[in-house]
């Protein structure tokens, strides 16, 4: 099904609206984290980096996982919209990946005493981000849309397979990285005010992901609609 410029424009507008709400939500997270969340005694103010680092990591993993899911579905259904969404999700995932990879070391320096260590979680996360940088480069290098979608889908699926290893790496290997406080079999290991800020931030980063990905997907739809119109 070929997208129409009207559908693409409506998707872009919806995405921009959600992104705006997400940005307002981010301001709320900043306020919650700084004014209404207690300071952790052992880590000090640096602990508050967690309220943006972990949600950014969540959004990045969600984005990268959805690239793989859409890739798999594309190989099955051959619907170009799935490829367009995968393209959008990969770009947005890299934005959140950049936040994850910069805020992590900024927390690590005062807490671990080092900006970076080559332990399993950090190394696997870096590899995952590199894989999606490669994904973007691959897309840019292939001009045939069907070939580009097919090869990209395979790389996206490889990325999806890496996501659970990144999450489980803190259990599978000896690592400096803290264990999950939320995505684990037992109850969340955080005081209620901190948990409230974390959950709010996760909701806001998810909303930002949806808004950004929808806008970017709409831009892809518009490009395809214009391409189809020019070809006619």
């Amino acid at each position, binding site marked *: 099904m070929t997208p129409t410029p009207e559908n*693409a424009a409506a998707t872009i507008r919806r995405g921009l609206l959600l992104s705006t709400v997400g940005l307002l939500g981010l301001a709320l997270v*900043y306020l919650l984290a700084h004014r209404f969340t207690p300071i952790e005694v052992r880590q000090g103010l*640096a602990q508050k980096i967690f309220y943006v680092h972990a949600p950014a990591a969540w959004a990045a993993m969600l984005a990268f996982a959805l690239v793989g899911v859409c890739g798999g579905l594309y190989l099955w259904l051959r619907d170009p919209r799935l490829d367009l969404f995968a393209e959008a999700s990969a770009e*947005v995932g890299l934005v959140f990946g950049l936040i994850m990879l910069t805020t992590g070391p900024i927390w690590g320096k005062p807490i671990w005493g080092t900006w970076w260590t080559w332990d399993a979680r950090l190394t696997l996360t870096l590899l995952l981000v590199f894989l999606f940088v490669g994904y973007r480069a691959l897309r840019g290098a292939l001009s045939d849309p069907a070939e580009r979608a097919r090869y990209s889908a395979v790389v996206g699926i490889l990325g999806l397979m890496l996501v659970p290893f990144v999450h489980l790496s803190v259990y599978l290997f000896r690592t400096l990285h803290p264990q999950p406080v939320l995505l684990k079999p037992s109850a969340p290991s955080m005081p209620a005010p901190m948990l409230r800020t974390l959950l709010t931030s996760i909701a806001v980063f998810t909303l930002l992901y949806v808004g950004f990905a929808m806008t970017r997907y709409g831009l892809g739809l*518009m490009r395809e609609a214009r391409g189809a119109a020019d070809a006619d």
Partner: protein
Amino acid sequence: MQTSPPDNGGYMIAAYLIVGVVILGYALSLLRRARTALRRE
């Protein structure tokens, strides 16, 4: 025994600044691309 939190607020400010700059920067980039696309609609 440590009784007060360590003084490391600068790291927190740096992290939150980076998050704001990256998110706002990307949002503005999307907005610019969207305006160009919608103008040509």
